[in-house]
């Protein structure tokens, strides 16, 4: 029935190759085969956004993506958006403004927000809300999240040199 296949793709800017079962989701491969546990598993049914990652720059749910279909794609996870020891402006802003409390929803939200800001650096509060409307947060009440994204956007506009890795499509 299922068979192992060699998945080769780019993860956080680096080529990755791994032998996985064809019935595995991308979420399982990232967490279990590549040890990238920054991507969280919540509902695993498409109902929460905790597992959101970027595939070719687009936010998608890794719990509903077949790993085999990621062949040759560029995947960005939360581990891949900082540079060296430096956090991405979104990570800084979430830490500073309480955009993350328990932090479980945070990786999915930051990646989703990053995709928005890469395309729309001056996104309005309404655009931020719309972009994040597929990410549930049990803790913050969302206001700090929107403020954090706005602050990061400001920072990124002022300091374009902070536009770091993981923006490739």
């Amino acid at each position, binding site marked *: 029935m299922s068979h192992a296949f060699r998945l080769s793709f780019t993860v956080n800017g680096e080529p990755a190759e791994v032998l996985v079962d064809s019935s595995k989701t991308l979420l399982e491969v990232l967490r279990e085969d590549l040890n990238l546990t920054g991507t969280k598993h919540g509902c695993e049914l498409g109902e929460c956004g905790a597992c959101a990652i970027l595939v070719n720059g687009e936010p998608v*749910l890794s719990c*509903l993506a*077949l790993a085999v*279909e990621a062949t040759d794609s560029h995947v960005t996870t939360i581990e891949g958006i900082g540079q060296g020891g430096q956090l991405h402006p979104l990570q800084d802003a979430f830490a500073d403004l309480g955009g993350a409390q328990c932090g479980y929803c945070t990786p999915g939200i930051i990646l989703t927000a990053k995709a928005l800001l890469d395309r729309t650096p001056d996104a309005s509060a309404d655009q931020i809300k719309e972009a994040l*409307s597929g990410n549930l947060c049990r803790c913050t009440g969302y206001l700090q999240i929107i403020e954090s994204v706005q602050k990061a956007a400001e920072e990124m506009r002022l300091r374009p040199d902070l536009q770091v890795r993981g923006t490739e499509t």
Partner: protein
Amino acid sequence: MMRLPAFTYRAPRTVGDAVLWLAESPTDTMLVAGGTDLLPNMKRRQQTPKTVIGLKGIAELTGIRASGHLSIGAGTTLTALVNSADVRSRCLGLWQSAAQIATPHLRNMGTLGGNLCLDTRCTYYDQTEEWREAIGYCMKKDGTTCWVATSSKRCLAVSSTDTAPMLLALGATVTLVSAKGTREVAVADLYNNDGMQYLTRRADELLTSIDIPDQTGWASTYWKLRRRGSFDFPVGAAAIALKRDAGGRVELARVVLGAVASQPMPSPKAEAILVGQVLSDDVIAAAAEAAYDVAKPMDNTDFELVWRKKMVRTLVTNALRELRGDDMRAVRMSLAKQVL
């Protein structure tokens, strides 16, 4: 982790290969496009195909071509549909229906073809294997009884696709391709009012494209009822398309309800009431009443069924008032919680 059951995965590059492979064993093979419906169902063991044919690698299934009519590849994502200026300017109702589906992430993945073939839904069915086992399963999968209506001979699971009612109202057709040949089917004829055999598509057929006739002279709108401003499937919907003369008199009308039966449900009576009339308050009220009569929601989704049935009147009224030119933006916002 909630794991997928084991299956063999195959990835054709052409429609020709896809239908040949599908023909090898149509009853235990399933197609996967975005996977946003099939994969949750597989994780819950509601659908357990032995072979899964992935459609992502078939380039000819994607894209929107606009000439007089609009031709949309079945593999076009909902995001691509929502971003299409042609879709928005020519059939606003279709744009509104797609923009209200699920979440941005799910629209990045989900396709129009997958949305048309979306499995019907029910609170006794959209549950984990353990949950369903505990109630002795149900008629739709592994059991014999329908828990929604124990004397029912058929499954009453709900048609929950947002685009199907709208495409039906727009007079759209779909192309179905199999190893045996190609046929065109009106969206109106794509569905059965049966929660199990909800599609007239044969198991060996691939839906390749959706065609919408020239909309010159027509105006359309889609109103959806859901609990939250994102994520949630419709629990009621009104999809209306009207063709009017210069004086605003209705020449042709299509009124279709979503999520109140196992298929998108047209209301020929409401259509007959509208034709030949201008949209006065009385005409709108009469049409809304006729639509209310055909809505048969069951107690198997979110919200209470009597209220859902009553809301059909409201949805149809709002839709017709909006088409008449009333400023419905505030009402829209309170219901949809997004600008449409």
